[in-house]
């Protein structure tokens, strides 16, 4: 196991017969992931891209020993889909679905937690460990195996930065896109210890956004617990206060959660904070070069 996924990861895709489910099943397989099953109620017995489709997650797990779920089902049914996975014994559930009401997500989070299932997302690109497995939708092309761990609240900005790292001749150990919704299954603080403990990760990239206080909490955690170098970037420094930038995670509320407070907290914790996304790969490359010299 690198972080959460590895070659033993066996994925069941919930909502596999939908457009996104089908497209990303193919992409996950091309990445080298063992996508062993799909689930769409009523479509049991069919196949998608060679992957057997079941009516229920329990059947899929019993038949294929799936241990991770990738959820594409529409928002109104996402809560139920997650509960089904949890009850079937799935330990890692990546929820790609966007627009899930946070009241639903509260139930999902606390139920999954009480049963020992980790959620990544919702509204997230998922997790990928190049050369091992991908559960989610991050484009395959941006990756290259390596020793940089990436944790991000963004979607496409993650791809942009991962791609930049790859273009600088480096690679990634694992990349997690946490999702930017108000309630996320895995936060920076939850993900940081996994990378700190991961022997395949040498340095960490953290991509944050304005809104919420997840980056400030991450900074506190880094201060006490993370010894690996951290390069951070916070998007939205120039965003106008009070306007939404596409999702609820990006509202500046009451002076808390501003770019300034996040940057200050991270710098205080010893992280290098990039001012622009294209500076991240440069900083990473410089640290990697120093690490290589040691």
């Amino acid at each position, binding site marked *: 196991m690198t972080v959460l996924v590895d070659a033993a990861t066996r994925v069941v895709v919930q909502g596999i017969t939908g*457009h*996104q489910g089908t*497209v990303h099943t193919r992409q996950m397989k091309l990445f080298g992931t063992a996508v062993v099953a799909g689930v769409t109620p009523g479509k049991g017995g069919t196949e998608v891209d060679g992957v057997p489709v079941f009516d229920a997650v329990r059947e899929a797990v019993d038949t294929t020993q799936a241990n991770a779920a990738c959820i594409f089902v529409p*928002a*109104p049914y996402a809560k139920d889909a997650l509960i089904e996975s949890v009850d079937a014994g799935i330990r890692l559930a990546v929820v790609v679905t*966007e*627009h*899930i*009401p*946070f*009241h639903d997500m*509260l*139930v999902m989070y*606390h139920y999954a937690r009480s049963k020992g299932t980790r959620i990544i997302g919702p509204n997230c*690109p998922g997790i990928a460990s190049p050369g091992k497995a991908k559960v989610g*939708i*991050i*484009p395959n*092309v*941006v990756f290259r195996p390596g020793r940089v761990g990436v944790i*991000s609240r*963004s*979607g*496409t*900005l*993650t*791809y*942009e930065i991962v*791609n930049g790292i790859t273009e600088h001749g480096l690679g990634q150990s694992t990349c997690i896109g946490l999702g*930017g919704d*108000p*309630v996320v299954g895995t*936060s920076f603080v939850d993900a940081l210890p996994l990378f700190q403990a991961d022997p395949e990760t040498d340095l960490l990239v953290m*991509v944050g*956004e*304005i809104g*919420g*206080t*997840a980056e400030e*909490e991450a900074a506190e955690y880094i201060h006490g617990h993370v010894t690996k170098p951290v390069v951070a*970037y916070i*998007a*939205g*420094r*120039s*965003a*106008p206060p009070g*306007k*939404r*930038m*596409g*999702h*609820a*995670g*990006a509202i500046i509320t*009451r002076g808390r959660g501003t770019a300034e407070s996040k940057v200050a907290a991270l710098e205080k914790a010893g992280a290098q904070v990039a*001012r*622009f*996304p*294209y500076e991240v790969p440069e900083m990473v490359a410089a640290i990697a070069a120093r690490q290589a010299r040691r």
Partner: protein
Amino acid sequence: MVKLAEWRGKELFRKYGVPLPIGQVARTPAEAEQLTRSGTVPLPCVVKAQVLAGGRAKGGAVRFANTPEEARAAAQGILGLEFKGETVKEVLLEQKLALGRELYLSFTLDRSARLPILIVSAQGGVEIESVDDAAIARIPVDPFPGLAAYERRRAAQELGLSGPVAASLDRLLSALWRLFQQEDAELVEINPLAVVGEGLVALDAKVIIEDDAGFRHPEYSDIRDDRTPLEEIAREKEIAFVQLDGNIGVIANGAGLTMATLDVLKEFGGNPGVFLDLGGTDDPKKVTEAFLLMAQAKPRAVFLNIFGGVTRCDTVAKGLVAAMDQVPPGERFPLVARIRGNNEREGIEILRAAGITSIPSLKDSAQAVVAAARGSA
């Protein structure tokens, strides 16, 4: 984010059993007079502009009336007012009560704890942001067992309530908690919550319903936010679209990348005016629609910054090229494109065929669009 006007919030309060002053909405001065003359709203009464912005009392949007004539005059004075960008179309008339202490109370989400949170303060009647942190109590609530009796008792204690008023708070909190959950609220706020005799009365109501829960609440689909007309069209087409004061249009995909693009443009002296987030669309028609919407905002220059994931570069390129032809010649603008990621090669080829060059570096492309905006000024 569906913000309910005070009177609509209070309709919900009534439904769930939160105690309110007697009141009713009027849309004309005559109606205001009639409501008070008939005794439907007892006198003396308060006449309040139904706008979403705060600070109404200071802004002259709240008046008092002792007679039906005064109620009419108050409504006359408020209806049609421009208040912080909103035009007042409704007033709420409510009996004026003999108030005791004024408290603050709300349910909202604590993102860090991933729990609903009950916030109370004995210092109500003012903006909660201005209250000293030590005077605000935060009580997290677990959604499984729901709001517990001991949490309601703690709220009473924090508010300094006991006896029948505490019992009234207990009932009010249970009602409000049900409302918060069942209506999929992001925020339910009562400020001020007034002690009246041995009970409590909600003098104001601020309820925000979560957009994403719209599929469970068709009853809120008619409520408009404070959007510009173009933003409203965008909303109907499900395109995230924000209009500001600048002159550069930005089309990107994903909130993070959109914000990062903004940051970079500002760095190079650009002044972004419209942001359009394509999100995870993979439909060329939607890209065309988005682009035409952007054209209507009349930007000096447009920056297309796409990193293909779910959205593929060729899809965006196709949609863009299709849109370019539909923009009337007088409304055309310089376009700088940067498309990366999934099907990048195909997308670049489609753009090139239409005479558009994709600049791979974010830095270079941002500088190019800033220059273009200046050039076309």
